[in-house]
């Protein structure tokens, strides 16, 4: 007979074995090669924490009491996993993209990072999981008792609660050791997950072994078993009872909402494709776990004494047939079921408690004082450890209170209903953008309260928490408030009653309040991110271990840092890792280093998001986006400044180019001017020189010849003088050094004098001048002599150049407000279009009319005069002769 002490030794050895496995796995993962630790098999096996001691022992008890109803607990999860494409896939994707750490975190993130919601869900999870942990303690204690019972005669009756106490302490230690070794950003625990996978195999093998023994060893084959089912007390089963559908729904909801299931399904998930494998492998696991439940129950009922606890048939049956090794295996299976559940539940709960309750409180208390990051880290770790202890203490307390009296199944279902209160907020949050924080809070609080009142507190069976009188008659004897029959609608099933009321009111409030309230901007953003997660994220590809990630990282870094720098960085890292000539493994240190390097060029948030995309496959949360936007704004502002500067530079360069072109042009003009001047001066000079030489050297010139030659010399000198006068005049005008002598005058008078200066005898002149005397009577205040000079020049030009047979000049005057315009139009052929722009330039004589005795400075001088008088002179293109317009103010502005 296996004694109690042997059992303790076996337990300790088994735990030590798990410890080694967890330790080895942790070391393996830290080396950067997670490899097989991240396989779909491990993932599926870790999901098996759904099958706790409740399944291992309780399912048989459940079947012995209620026939096939126990199946509902496994059919619900089967539907959920087979339908992974609907829901789990989305939840896992969201979890990975938003770096979710728990159910509370998911709900809080979805509703705009509301800490209130996180606290509610955390409390719900803690209170909901407490009975469950108590259940595990109870099952381990019961199984110890089974072995210890025969020895009880020799020793004093063992104290049950002390066994439970030591189990709780042991589990707390194990969980603290592996659950809080590090504060990983993504909260993944390789060691624990691997140990749990091993435990999953142990419990499956144990239950199958007992099943095989019962079917073939005791009953004598499957056929015989079926016959014995027909003969047994559970041959008939109330299949259409009201519990079937609600229980399937409940278990399906629980597999989604249970904190420990969320931990392994979502948080520990490293690759979405593992979910695809789990979609069939996990239902298969459940099927195998359930396969022999009914046979064991039936044989147990037949073989065991009527007062035997059916919850322990898995243990007592092998013992009854003296198969101690099998019993020991079964014991280990039960022990595995209990420990794995407690460990993961404690990790999940401690994460929630420390992240959503302890840390916010601590930070608020420390507000204002300087904190270092290492400080916070230690506090977080301590908070985790204390939370784990606290969670197990709560479980132990619940166990002591209910004194282990309840049937295992009943306790488990109480838990299920509790944690399922998160379902409306969770499902609504993932599929309905209209779900709001207020709605979720209202639903959660109402559901939580109703669950406490109608199911949780009554489970203490009329203790001081909820006295029996209230249970029977309602508070203050208000009958319709009886916890197990609200409004008199009770039925005979408190579980279904509580579930209906709590989930019903929860969902209704959630929907109605959501419809009536308005979400905050962050909430709406997060809502869109969650509901449309498949549009916002890339494919399922998971942790790209090894060289693939390193290669991607290198490509990205080359773009950001430049190829030589990035390659040097990678080579140095590879050298440090001892992988000369290879790409370095993307270890934590290396990725941290890379992130720091990259953040130098693109900003910390952007670098984190980019590296995260490649290594973790995680996408970017709203806060990340805000930070990235911030950095981008800074970079954009900087580049905008650069752009403005370079635009300014370009403008200056253009101005300089223009100025340079002008200078060049001026230089060319100056050269042209000088050569023109020399040419104009040379012609008269050479004729003066030639004739003066004749006068000097020729003897015997007649008086007539002498007269003629000296008058030529005189004329040419006059012409030279005139030219020089003109040049001087022009230079003065151009430099603006001219002094104007404004005086009162009349336009008609001015024109009269100009005409008579050009054509002294109008009757003899070949040029006919037509004027409009009435319009010419315009009083002027201007430099009359200068203006007359312009008029004389224009009339003179007409006289000289008009090529009509009967030349005619029309002078028109137009007064326009404060200005007056005088137009001179002849009936000649006008100025050719190409040369119109040249006529106002110096020495611009259109043809070789040099005989006309002009150096071609006239119009240039006119232009300068008009400019000085505040007016203008322009050539009016058009048919019918040359047309000049002189425009000037009627009163010249006094030069300053």
């Amino acid at each position, binding site marked *: 007979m296996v004694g109690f002490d042997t059992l303790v030794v076996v337990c300790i050895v088994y735990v030590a074995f798990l410890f080694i496995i967890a330790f080895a796995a942790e070391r393996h993962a830290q080396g950067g090669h997670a490899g097989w630790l991240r396989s779909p098999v491990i993932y599926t096996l870790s999901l098996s924490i759904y099958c706790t001691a409740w399944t291992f022992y309780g399912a048989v008890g459940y079947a012995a009491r209620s026939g096939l109803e126990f199946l509902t607990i496994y*059919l619900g999860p089967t539907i959920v996993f087979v339908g992974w494409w609907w829901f789990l896939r989305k939840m896992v994707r969201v979890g990975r993209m938003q770096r979710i750490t728990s159910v509370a975190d998911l709900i809080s993130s979805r509703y705009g990072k509301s800490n209130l919601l996180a606290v509610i869900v955390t409390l719900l999870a803690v209170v909901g999981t407490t009975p469950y942990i108590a259940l595990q303690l109870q099952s381990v204690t019961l199984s110890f008792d089974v072995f210890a019972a025969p020895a009880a005669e020799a020793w004093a009756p063992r104290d049950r609660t002390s066994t439970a106490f030591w189990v709780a302490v042991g589990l707390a230690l194990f969980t603290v050791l592996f659950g809080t070794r590090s504060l990983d950003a993504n909260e993944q625990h390789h060691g624990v997950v691997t140990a749990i996978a091993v435990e999953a195999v142990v419990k499956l093998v144990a239950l199958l072994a007992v099943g095989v023994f019962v079917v073939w060893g005791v009953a004598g084959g499957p056929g015989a078993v*079926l016959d014995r089912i027909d003969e047994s007390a559970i041959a*008939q089963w109330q299949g259409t009872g009201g519990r079937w559908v609600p229980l399937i729904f409940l278990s399906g909801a629980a597999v989604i909402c249970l904190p420990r299931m969320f931990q392994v399904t979502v948080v520990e998930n490293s690759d979405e494709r593992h979910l695809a494998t789990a979609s069939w492998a996990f239902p298969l696991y459940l099927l195998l776990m359930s396969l022999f439940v009914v046979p064991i129950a039936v044989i147990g009922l037949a073989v065991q004494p009527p007062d035997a606890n059916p919850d322990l048939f898995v243990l007592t049956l092998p013992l009854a047939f003296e198969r101690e090794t099998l019993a020991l295996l079964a014991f280990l299976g039960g022990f595995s079921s209990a420990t794995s559940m407690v460990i993961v539940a404690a990790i999940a709960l401690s994460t929630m408690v420390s992240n959503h309750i302890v840390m916010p409180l601590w930070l608020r208390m420390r507000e204002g004082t300087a904190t270092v990051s290492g400080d916070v880290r230690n506090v977080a770790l301590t908070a985790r450890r204390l939370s784990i202890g606290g969670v197990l203490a709560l479980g132990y307390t619940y166990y002591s209170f209910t004194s282990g009296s309840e049937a295992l199944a009943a306790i488990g279902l109480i838990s299920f209903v509790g944690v399922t209160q998160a379902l409306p907020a969770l499902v609504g949050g993932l599929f309905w953008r209209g779900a709001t924080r207020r709605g979720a809070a209202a639903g959660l609080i109402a559901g939580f309260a109703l669950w406490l009142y109608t199911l949780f507190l009554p489970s203490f069976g009329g203790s001081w928490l909820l006295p029996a009188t209230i249970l029977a008659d309602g508070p203050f004897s208000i009958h319709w408030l009886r916890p197990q029959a609200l409004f008199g609608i009770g039925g005979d099933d408190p579980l279904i009653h509580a579930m209906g009321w709590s989930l019903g009111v929860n969902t209704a409030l959630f929907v109605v309040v959501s419809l009536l309230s308005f979400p905050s901007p962050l909430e709406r953003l997060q809502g869109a991110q969650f509901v449309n997660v498949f549009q916002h994220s890339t494919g399922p590809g998971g942790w790209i271990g090894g060289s693939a990630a390193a290669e991607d990282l290198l490509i990205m870094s080359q773009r950001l840092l430049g190829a030589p720098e990035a390659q040097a960085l990678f080579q140095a890292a590879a050298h440090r890792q001892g992988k000369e000539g290879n790409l370095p493994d993307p270890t934590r240190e290396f990725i941290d280093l890379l992130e720091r390097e990259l953040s130098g060029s693109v900003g910390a948030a952007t670098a984190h998001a980019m590296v995260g995309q490649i290594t973790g496959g995680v996408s970017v949360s709203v806060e990340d986006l805000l930070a990235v936007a911030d950095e981008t704004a800074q970079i954009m502002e900087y580049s905008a400044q650069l752009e403005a500067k370079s635009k300014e530079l370009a403008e200056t360069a253009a101005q300089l180019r223009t100025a340079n072109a002008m200078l060049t042009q001026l230089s060319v003009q100056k050269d042209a001017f000088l050569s023109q001047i020399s040419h104009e001066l040379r012609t008269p000079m050479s004729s003066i020189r030639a004739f003066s030489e004749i006068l000097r050297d020729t003897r015997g010139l007649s008086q007539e010849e002498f007269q003629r030659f000296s008058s030529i010399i005189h004329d040419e000198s006059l012409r030279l003088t005139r030219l020089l006068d003109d040049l001087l005049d022009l230079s003065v005008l151009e430099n603006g050094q001219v002094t104007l002598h404004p005086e009162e005058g009349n336009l008609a008078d001015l024109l009269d004098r100009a005409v008579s200066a050009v054509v002294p005898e109008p009757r003899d002149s070949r040029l006919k001048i037509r004027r409009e005397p009435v319009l010419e009577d315009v009083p002027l205040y201007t430099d009359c002599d200068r203006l007359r000079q312009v008029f004389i020049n224009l009339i003179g030009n007409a006289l000289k150049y008009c090529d009509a047979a009967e030349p005619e000049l029309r002078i028109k005057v137009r007064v326009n407000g404060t200005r007056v315009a005088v137009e001179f139009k002849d009936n000649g052929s006008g100025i050719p279009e190409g040369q119109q722009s040249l006529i106002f330039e110096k020495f611009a004589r259109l043809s070789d009319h040099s005989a006309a005795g002009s150096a071609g400075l006239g119009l240039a001088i006119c232009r300068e005069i008009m400019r000085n008088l505040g007016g203008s002179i322009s050539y009016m293109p058009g048919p019918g002769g040359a047309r000049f317009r002189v425009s000037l103010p009627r009163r010249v502005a006094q030069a300053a």
Partner: protein
Amino acid sequence: MSRRAEHALLLEQRNYRRRRLHDAAFLLPVLAVLLFLLPLMGFRAEDGSEGVVSTRAAGIYFFAAWALLVLAAGVLSVRLVRGGGDERPAGGGDGG
């Protein structure tokens, strides 16, 4: 038909197959619900009394249905992973 057009057609077909796979994945849980709720409608014990089911018959039925679902989910999951469960439009594939 040019190679290019052929390629496009093949991709279209792959895309089409994938869509139907997704449909199947969506329908499987519906089938599961139907299978598991069926006893509510029809199963009768041998004595024919209302609402009472033979554990033997119902047990065999449930485990058979369960196994069927596991099988279907297995086939589907292998195909979904191989065919790319991704919802992005086709184009990233090898073009096979």
